[in-house]
């Protein structure tokens, strides 16, 4: 819309571009380099190129495969349940009732709560000796003995999933609610005339109208949830017996242990896996942008 060639847009973008290149692309390039190095800060004298050694080690590392599997389950159940309950909440909030605005605002609070605090709050709720969840379940007669939820592999993984679902419901609800409000009433009116049931309207009108927003939000959440470290780390640190160690947490633990080369190798593999999701996301963003203009 402006004069054909102007230097202005480039000048205006330069500061942001420089910032992003130095703090993102230089580190990414560095990570690639480090993945081919033995780079362990506890053994600084041994730092040097080792070729594919790290990659071969990762492929032979049972903990890596285990963490990969945990990541898949974590994303599948985490994002899946966030979507389901987010849709339920959005449908409930998409009606007029007294205090709706307030209810909508406060239901979003988990979304702005620090991940550390989320991890720690739930750690206290799940506590095996003094935790309120045990007390509630005992009072309701669901269990007869206290369960150390975070201390045994069978219950620790469902517990971390529950926590990430709790964190993600509000964001899904927020996006889906915006989509719901864009569906014209006439569609539902027409369906009413045809005598459609509530469920039919949900499946035939609501979900198809939200298709695009569901797709974009889900892709975004997959990337966030897969990358999330703080919630799991503050709940369980990846334990017990590695039962809650996703790839991100495993990499974070390796980084904390200062084995930077090995951690870089794994983080590059994680990035490559997520790149598939990211490409789908970018494609749909641009498709929307062009459609919107």
């Amino acid at each position, binding site marked *: 819309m402006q004069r054909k060639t102007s230097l202005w847009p480039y000048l205006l973008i330069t500061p*942001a571009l420089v910032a*992003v290149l130095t703090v993102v692309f230089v580190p990414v390039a560095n990570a690639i380099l480090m993945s081919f190095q033995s780079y362990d800060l506890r053994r600084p004298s041994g730092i040097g190129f080792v070729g594919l050694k790290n990659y071969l080690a990762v492929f032979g590392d049972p903990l890596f495969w285990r963490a990969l599997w945990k990541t898949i389950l974590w994303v599948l159940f985490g994002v899946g349940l966030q979507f389901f309950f987010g849709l339920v909440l959005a449908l409930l909030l998409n009606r007029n009732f007294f205090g709706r605005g307030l209810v909508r605002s406060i239901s979003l*609070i988990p979304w702005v709560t620090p991940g550390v*605090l989320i991890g720690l709050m739930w750690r206290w709720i799940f506590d095996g000796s003094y935790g309120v969840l045990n007390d509630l379940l005992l009072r309701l007669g669901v269990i007869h003995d206290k369960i150390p939820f975070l201390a045994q592999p069978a219950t620790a993984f469902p517990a971390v999933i529950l926590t990430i679902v*709790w964190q993600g419901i509000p964001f899904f609800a927020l996006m889906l609610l915006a989509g719901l409000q864009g569906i014209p009433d006439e569609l539902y009116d027409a369906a009413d005339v045809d005598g459609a049931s509530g469920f039919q309207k949900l499946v035939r009108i609501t979900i198809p109208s939200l298709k695009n927003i569901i797709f974009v939000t889900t892709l975004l959440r997959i990337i966030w949830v897969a990358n999330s470290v703080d919630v799991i780390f*503050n709940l369980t640190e990846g334990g017990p017996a590695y039962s809650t160690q996703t790839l*991100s947490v495993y990499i974070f633990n390796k980084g904390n242990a200062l084995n*930077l080369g090995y951690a*870089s190798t794994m983080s590059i593999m994680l990035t490559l896996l997520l*790149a598939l999701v990211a490409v789908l996301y970018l494609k749909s963003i641009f498709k929307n942008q062009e459609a919107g203009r």
Partner: protein
Amino acid sequence: MRKRGSSLFGAVLRYLLLAAMLAFLLFPFYWTFVTSIKPESELYGQTVTYWPQRATFDSYAKLFLEFKFLKPMANSLVVAAATTTISLTVSLLAAYAFSRYRFKGRKFLMTLFLTNNMFPAVLLLIPLYAIMRKIGILYTPRALVLSYTTFTIPFSIWLLSGYLDDLPTSLEEAAMVDGANRAQAFIRIILPILAPCVVATGAYVFMTSWNEYTFAVMFTNEANRTIPVALRNLIGQLGVQWGMLTAGGIITIIPVCIMFFFAQKRLIAGLTAGAVKG
């Protein structure tokens, strides 16, 4: 609306469902607050109480006097304020360029910024640690500000250019016909209208920096640790100090909630705009 006969049952069911949902979403906050005002004896007692028999602010006093919580609060404030200022300035310029100019390489550059948010934090974390260690800014607030801009700048550009796209260009064009140059038109006409959106974006950047843990735990030491790291440090080798920890948690989310309530309208509009369009 039409089927009034069955709607009473439906309404009751909806309210019950909504109440259950809200209870699930809000209970952890209630529980955190109740824990923070319980005396030590009641925290680790035989029975779990749902409201303290004797409410006390001992944990809060201990948090500030013994644990010196003001220090991490000040550190967090500095880091979040600096991140917000830098991100907004840099992003506003770039967003204006993306929204108001059509130029060669625009799509490529936009993709470049968008892809940025896709990189796992752990991928950047490790090389950044090595780089900052080398250039000697590891364990300073600068390390955190620098690493936070990795995700706040791309996000702010995306949000701000969305807001700008919604403003008609005729506004500036009118001013420019009257003899103002582009910068004057931007400052006098666009910025005042855009101000609430800039504030909302800033609030989001502030909240993300205030809440961030993964970078903070690796890039800070005792002297400049931020709130999330300090909270985590209350988990000691001898057990967790739940009274102080929950008190710290309540104090941490109060400013976030206040900011969120003021910014939410614009923020939600900005966040959902892109996705709803299609």
